[in-house]
């Protein structure tokens, strides 16, 4: 069933056909095809409901929304959630007949409802409770025995089902089947005995199960982590953005007594439609963990000991300056930063590049794509990707990496609005929805793209003539949006970037949506946390003059990325001058960098290591200075999602102990480096960003406030802003617990009147006088040097190591319920290759590289090309770690596969 598509933008809406009808005696205009319940709500008439959800097709089963409708068939009670407004129809929502029918439905619902509100998680934010108070009969006429079921049934590690409370609205089953596409829960039984159930031994493992908890209008589905932790009326909330991945889902962050209790999805049209993935929803709790870093630490006599901030910063500054003075700025490097706020990223960028003078700065930990390609390609929005006639998937499995993007793309494909062309080394969650899927072996992405766009011969793995012809046709028809990510960590990112550039050359109108995964990775890149990049998506040489004026100094030459930094730190001669001082910004190369052994050697060898982190991790063992940082929900600021959308982060919690927000750590370090940058609050940092970055020009706090949850896509100039803005549906039970009934009465937030930021232009012009012209963002990718890939020899297999949602990342590890979902990864092998080895499913194979070997369980996967083997990165891997097999000096990983 198609997910209702959001209303078109303002221009489209003006052309839409409107119809008029009579609602409680007044004339109301509605969009043709608009549902009565929505049209009424838009003009302030709230019709009670349970089963209706604005993001799912109506089924009209709870019968709570009945109203009296007079039409050609006379006056009758009709479900307003199902009826489309018809011209001339007369609707009465408050007659005695309507009231009686609604009271009747409530009474029917309550006869078997346990009324255990005092112990129910939903108590206090329960639409059934609320509507009973508002509409229901005073006392019960039901004296018989209620239905009884065994009390809460765990239907997964995360979700519990209390069947007695269920009102059979089918919101959860519709979500699972129609939105997530995995009908793991379904109604069981019939009539009075109709209940939600799972198949024996097949739990509700959907990555999206938490949404069913959120949209359940009663307390039938509850989240194991949240259960009994708080009462809704004790909770405070702020609106924010989830930064677990880079999609930028809007959330309400709720806490009680400075502990985060839960995250709820907020419905924003351009991004998440109210949905969240379970990782985002449940790992947020990691902020509460007990082992947070609360004090700065400095290594003394081999031990890390707590010190004052002053001492820690002094030690850090001394160490960095010592290395720089001895070996040059290139010997100092900064790795990480993709989890910072925009403000944190900017100040760190300025400290590294403007103060320390090094360009060897990289927010990606060798697991992303070359920054200059990502930043230079014309960018698509999520909406564009979810409505493009042809979507080329040149990325990993988006359900594993950016789960809610999977929902958007799936909906686009299922509704027939988009046709997906998948170019990937293995099947993904979108494969069943793709119009055609073509496989390539690692190293062959660009060749496959050429085969699709120019008719060149296809690489060996993609010999499906029908699929190839279909791909050519669809790509030729366009317009095309390319979802561009990193399908495998065992294949150099430059190889995929090369393929993307082939696409960009062949399809000049194509737009690209980067599928990079880490929270604010695109904000960090935009603000200069990448070699060769200055804030505002500006190339180093282009921006030099401006930033020398703004900052006082910029590095003379382009620096190195994470892989080269680590190799140089480890002393690999080929990398040129060594790196002897390293700052890690919330990154742990030991788990994040694909070549784990190189990361280990680098950390061992680095002379001076500063770690900015919020919790203990592998890199701390090597740290000389540890600076405790605030985490998500403990810091204010902004973040940028994959499409370049900037939204505000709400601060809900006070950071523990002496942990500081990231921008402040950088700013204070600058002071200790002898340079006061002059910020006194996070807002001041944003002001500076808005001033020095053409990308961010005009995105003033006023603009951000006006746009609220939707945020704004940078740069402003390329897209209309404000006027097209539409409030998300104001349905208090679309997201119970978020939308309060009060909010329902609130007027839609005003769109922007004049040009954005008009009021401040004059002031800024004065301040900017005398500076060089603001440098423009990159408009085309800088050509990259593509590593040469030797053809595989006939004895080896090529490795694919892909991301999986529940991996051994720090946040997952910190939340019990989520940690238990991390599963060991088998090696997936084309069944013919297994047969050749004489190994059955579940047998063991030995994988050998030049320097390492592991023995793993092998399972057949017919979706893989011959001689391509695949597994998941950073999860337990039977005989060791897949990262041990990856050697960054080779662009692809060729291995020997043998019987053990």
């Amino acid at each position: 069933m198609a997910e209702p598509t959001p209303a078109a933008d303002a221009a489209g809406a003006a052309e839409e056909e409107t119809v008029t009808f009579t609602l409680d005696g007044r004339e109301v205009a509605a969009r043709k095809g608009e549902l009565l319940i929505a049209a009424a709500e838009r003009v302030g008439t709230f019709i009670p409901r349970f089963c209706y959800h604005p993001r799912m097709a109506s089924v009209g089963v709870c019968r709570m929304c009945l109203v009296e409708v007079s039409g050609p068939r006379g006056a009758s009670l009709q479900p307003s959630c199902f009826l489309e407004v018809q011209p001339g129809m007369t609707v009465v929502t408050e007659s005695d007949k309507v009231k009686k029918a609604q009271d009747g439905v409530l009474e029917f619902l309550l006869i078997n409802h346990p009324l255990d509100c005092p112990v129910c998680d939903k108590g206090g934010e329960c639409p059934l409770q609320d509507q009973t108070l508002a509409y229901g009969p005073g006392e019960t006429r039901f004296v018989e025995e209620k239905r009884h079921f065994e009390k809460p049934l765990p239907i997964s590690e995360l979700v519990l089902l209390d069947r007695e409370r269920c009102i059979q609205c089918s919101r959860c089953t519709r979500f699972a089947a129609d939105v997530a596409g995995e009908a793991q829960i379904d109604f069981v039984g019939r009539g009075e005995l109709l209940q939600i159930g799972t198949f024996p031994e097949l739990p509700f493992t959907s990555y999206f199960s938490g949404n069913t908890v959120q949209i359940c209008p009663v307390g039938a589905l509850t989240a194991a982590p949240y259960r009994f932790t708080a009462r809704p009326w004790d909770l405070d909330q702020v609106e924010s953005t989830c930064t677990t991945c880079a999609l930028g889902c809007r959330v309400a962050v709720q806490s009680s007594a400075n502990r985060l209790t839960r995250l709820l999805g907020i419905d924003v049209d351009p991004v998440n439609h109210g949905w969240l993935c379970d990782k985002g929803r449940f790992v947020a709790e990691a902020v509460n963990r007990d082992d947070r870093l609360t004090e700065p630490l400095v290594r003394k006599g081999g031990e890390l000991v707590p010190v004052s901030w002053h001492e820690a910063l002094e030690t850090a500054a001394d160490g960095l300056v010592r290395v720089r003075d001895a070996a040059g700025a290139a010997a100092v490097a900064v790795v990480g930063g993709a989890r910072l706020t925009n403000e944190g990223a900017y100040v760190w960028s300025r400290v590294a590049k403007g103060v320390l003078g090094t360009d060897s700065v990289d927010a990606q930990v060798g697991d992303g794509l070359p920054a200059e390609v990502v930043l230079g390609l014309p960018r698509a929005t999520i909406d564009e990707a979810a409505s493009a006639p042809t979507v080329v998937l040149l990325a990993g499995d988006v359900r594993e990496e950016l789960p809610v993007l999977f929902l958007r793309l799936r909906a686009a494909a299922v509704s027939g609005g988009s046709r997906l062309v998948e170019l990937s080394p293995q099947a993904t969650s979108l494969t069943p929805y793709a119009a055609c899927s073509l496989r390539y072996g690692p190293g062959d992405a660009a060749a496959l793209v050429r085969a699709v766009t120019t008719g060149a011969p296809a690489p060996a793995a993609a010999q499906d003539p029908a699929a190839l012809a279909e791909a050519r046709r669809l790509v030729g028809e366009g317009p095309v949006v390319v979802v561009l990510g990193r399908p495998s960590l065992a294949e150099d990112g430059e190889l995929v970037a090369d393929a993307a550039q082939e696409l960009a050359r062949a399809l000049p109108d194509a737009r690209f949506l980067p599928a990079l995964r880490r929270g604010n990775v695109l904000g960090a890149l935009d603000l200069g946390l990448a070699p060769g990049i200055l804030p505002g998506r500006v190339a180093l040489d282009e921006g030099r003059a401006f930033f020398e004026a703004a900052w006082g100094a910029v590095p003379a030459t382009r620096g190195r990325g994470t892989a080269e930094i680590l190799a140089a730190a480890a002393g690999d001669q080929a990398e040129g001058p060594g790196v002897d001082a390293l700052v890690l910004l919330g990154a742990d190369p030991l788990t994040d960098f694909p070549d784990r052994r190189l990361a280990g050697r680098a950390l061992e060898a680095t002379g001076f290591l500063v770690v900015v982190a919020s919790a203990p991790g592998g890199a701390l063992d090597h740290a000389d200075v540890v600076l405790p940082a605030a985490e998500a929900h403990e810091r204010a600021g902004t973040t940028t999602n994959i499409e370049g959308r900037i939204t505000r982060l709400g601060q809900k919690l006070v950071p523990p102990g002496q942990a500081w927000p990231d921008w402040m750590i950088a700013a204070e370090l600058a002071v200790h480096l002898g340079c006061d940058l002059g910020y006194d609050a996070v807002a001041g940092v944003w002001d500076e960003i808005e001033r020095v970055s053409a990308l961010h020009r005009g995105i003033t706090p006023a603009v951000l406030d006006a746009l609220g949850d939707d945020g704004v896509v940078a740069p402003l100039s390329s897209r209309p802003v404000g006027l097209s803005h539409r409030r998300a549906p104001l349905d208090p039970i679309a997201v119970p617990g978020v939308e309060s009934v009060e909010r329902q009465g609130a007027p839609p937030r005003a769109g922007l009147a004049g040009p954005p930021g008009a009021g401040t232009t004059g002031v800024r012009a004065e301040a900017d006088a005398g500076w060089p012209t603001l440098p423009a963002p990159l408009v085309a990718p800088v050509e990259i040097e593509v590593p040469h890939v030797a053809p595989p020899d006939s004895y080896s297999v090529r490795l694919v190591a892909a991301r999986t949602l529940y991996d051994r990342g720090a946040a997952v590890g910190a939340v019990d319920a989520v940690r238990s979902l991390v599963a060991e990864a088998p090696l997936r092998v084309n069944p013919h290759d297994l047969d050749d080895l004489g190994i059955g499913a579940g047998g063991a194979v030995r994988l050998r590289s030049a320097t390492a070997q592991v023995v793993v369980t092998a399972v057949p996967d017919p979706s893989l090309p011959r001689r391509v083997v695949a597994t998941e990165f950073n999860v337990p891997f039977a005989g060791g770690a897949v990262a041990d097999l990856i050697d960054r000096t080779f662009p692809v990983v060729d291995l020997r596969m043998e019987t053990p």
Partner: protein
Amino acid sequence: MAVTEAPRIVTSRLGFEDAHTLGRYLATGGYEGLRKALAMTPEAVAAEVDAASLLGRGGAGFPAGRKWAMLRRSPVTYLVVNGDESEPATFKDHLLVERDPHQLVEGVLIAAYALQVTRAFIFLRGEFALGLERVQAALNEAYAHGAVGRDIFGSGFSVDVVVHPGAGAYICGEETALLESLEGKRGFPRIKPPYFPAAIGLYGAPTVVNNVETMSNLPWIVVHGGAAFAALGEGRSTGTRLFALAGHVNRPGVYELEMVKTTFADLIHAPVLGAGIRHGRQLKAFIPGGVSAPWFGPDQVDLPLGQDEVAQAGSMLGSGSIVVMDDRTCVVRAAWRITRFFSRESCGQCTPCREGSGWLERIMERIETGRGREDDLDLLLDACDNISPGVAWPPQQTTICVLGPSIPSSISSAISMFRDEFLVHIKEGGCPHG
């Protein structure tokens, strides 16, 4: 008046033990109608059916000709035959599928030709194990005979017919639930609009759904012409119809009678029909058209068996099943049992039907078993009103399908006709009938 000399249209072969075989069928004029139809244009066949004014025999009584005319033009269309027969005390289709399956198959083929459908499905109630075997065997014979499949009788017309077994759920008789069930889902009636499967039916394609008996009339209509059919009966109620008579009569059974020309009294008392109430007892009440229909008392016994006539008197002829209750019947128990049926058979999607039926059943049980309260009758009626506002005929509904408003029929009938008996139950703490 009594029993007219009308021809037997759908039961003509039932005197033969082997009526279900192709041999007997061909020997008694079988497949003549199909041959004749194939020689006509599809439109001409449909015109005969329209002229016959054949009212659907499944319960709603919608004219088949009009339904066919509503079939939306589309590259793919379907015919689905409703053989789910599960309305309590209805057992006429059972007879037709077991005893004269070829007649059904022929009717289906005639309709398939007239409608030019892509494929036809015969949905049979799963509990009809013998019926399923008989219809499948008849189809096998018909295929071999060239009457179904490719290029039927050399006419160039081809259609496949598939027998589909249900699996036990009354609601699958409701036509949209039936389509859902045929699509492999649970039998949840579809929400309206669209009001007719003729617009959006099986797999979203335009679909005609007709009852087994409706289909079984087609061979006769094509052979004898629509006018001959329309000449029988009266007004809109043309032709003959099968009436299933059950309960306290001497000769329960299925009788084919000319519509309107016969009354309920004839059906119950005529010696060749019901032959009177058993043991010389008196008529207390009867249900005129399946348990969804409001009850009638002795006062209405002289009403004719006609669709509109019964509707005007405040009930419905429905599926043509008449349940006779004698003067010793406990109406509370009878109404309770019927309510329990609806509670068990509610599909469960609509709140008023799912919860209301169960609640009403429990109140009725309480009264029958002596735990009733004085205000229970008002409560019953008020809860009924919340399922079917007004509790009047024709019913209004707060539910998706008309199973909802069927629930109150027996309760409100029993209370309005026999309020005293309820009060006796309540006051005496139990059933006076023991």
